[in-house]
């Protein structure tokens, strides 16, 4: 499975019609210490590029955008219980799994690296 990215600093892993979504290490570093995560309930339907959750750090509030249209299958309770796991390993701390109806064009790792290069 290749990992793809969004301009909203999320990573997306696609397996069949299921997308697993997390925030990037870059986003986690920018946010700082995450202390609260609010995720959509399983069963809820989401629309690409709309806000479906919150990732709150000691200093600011980040929004979780749905990268795809679809239905939330799972939200990662382990991250809700331990928000700091996003800072510890953002690449491993998946947030939601969505069964999507269509997959928009996403960024490659190279394109995302370019986006975040200063």
């Amino acid at each position: 499975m290749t990992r793809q990215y969004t301009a909203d600093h999320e990573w997306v892993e696609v397996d069949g019609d299921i997308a697993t979504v997390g925030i990037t290490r870059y986003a986690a570093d920018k946010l700082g210490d995450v202390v609260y995560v609010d995720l959509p309930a399983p069963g809820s339907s989401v629309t690409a590029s709309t806000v479906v959750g919150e990732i709150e750090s000691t200093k600011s509030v980040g929004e979780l955008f749905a990268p795809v249209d679809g239905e939330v299958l799972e939200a990662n309770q382990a991250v809700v219980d331990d928000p700091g796991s996003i800072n510890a390993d953002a690449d491993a701390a998946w947030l939601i799994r969505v069964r999507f109806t269509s997959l928009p064009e996403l960024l490659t790792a190279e394109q995302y690296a370019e986006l975040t290069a200063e």
Partner: protein
Amino acid sequence: MTQTADSPPLHTPLEAVHTALGVSFTDFAGWRMPVSYSSGLAEHAAVRAAAGLFDLSHMAEIAVIGPQAAAALDAALADPVSGIANGRAKYTLLENGEGGILDDLIVYRTGDDRFLVVANAGNRHVVADALRTRAGGFDCVVEDETDDIALIALQGPLSEEILRNVEGFEIPELDGLGYYRSTSGDFRGHGVFVARTGYTGEDGFEFSVAPEAAEALWTAVLETGEGSGLKPAGLAARDTLRLEAGMPLYGHELDATTHREGTGRTARLVRDGRVLVGLAGEGRRAGRAGYAVLRAGDAVGEITSGALSPTLGHPIAMAFVDAALAEPGTALTVDVRGTELPVTVVDLPFYRRPKEHA
């Protein structure tokens, strides 16, 4: 010279050290300053449990020197400072003609005719200009020494123990140096102004030293304390520490529309008829600066600073609320991005350090 968004940032003399430590920087009042080295939460916890080392070189240091320095400051500031003894310090305010707050300050008396005024970085020129103007009729000079002083703070319960073990740092009068007192020391041939003050709610020290000695002093203190849990700490930790300690921050709890009413323990901050209070919540979602405080659906106040308290584990905030609702125990709510969450008015500070000695 006014620092604006277009001006190049001012650099602390410790920038190279921070960079080597892998810090993230932010622009703060025109200065490029450390936000956090690893994790603001870990730095916060280190200050509460052991100690943290802060670079505060952006803070403004303004000396007022001369036979009438005390009289000039009495005329210029919200509280008289002529009564404080040499080696003592006082927290006070600079107000405009209508009682609006231009800055909060710590004034150190360093001699019969010498005072050091420490002001916020963003108000450096406002404070220096006001002191110059107000001291105009007095026999004294006002010198902005900010660029000639690096300020390093060592804060936390182990501060004194660490300080005593720093090789080459001699502070003859450290014994018995109480809180809000100051003295002088010598670090490897460089004079150091040592003050037992801080902005974290913990015991601690602030060192003013020549910029060329800052790196050696920083490194020596850090290496001495690392084994005891001392961590370098940035502005993120400083903000949550001062919030827990109930200390106001200019631009949040203090501004020109805010007045202080009363003095001493009964003093309170008032803005637009509302009073500054503490709010304590439940869970993990914190109200933040600018969020509305509600009572039965009506706006009755506004948060000025808020965070999930790292030490207490629940949300805390400072807010201006209608005077009738300022009583501790009053139940209110905060509009956290569309969700009303319950909070209770509480006394400040939220956190008080445990007293080891009676």
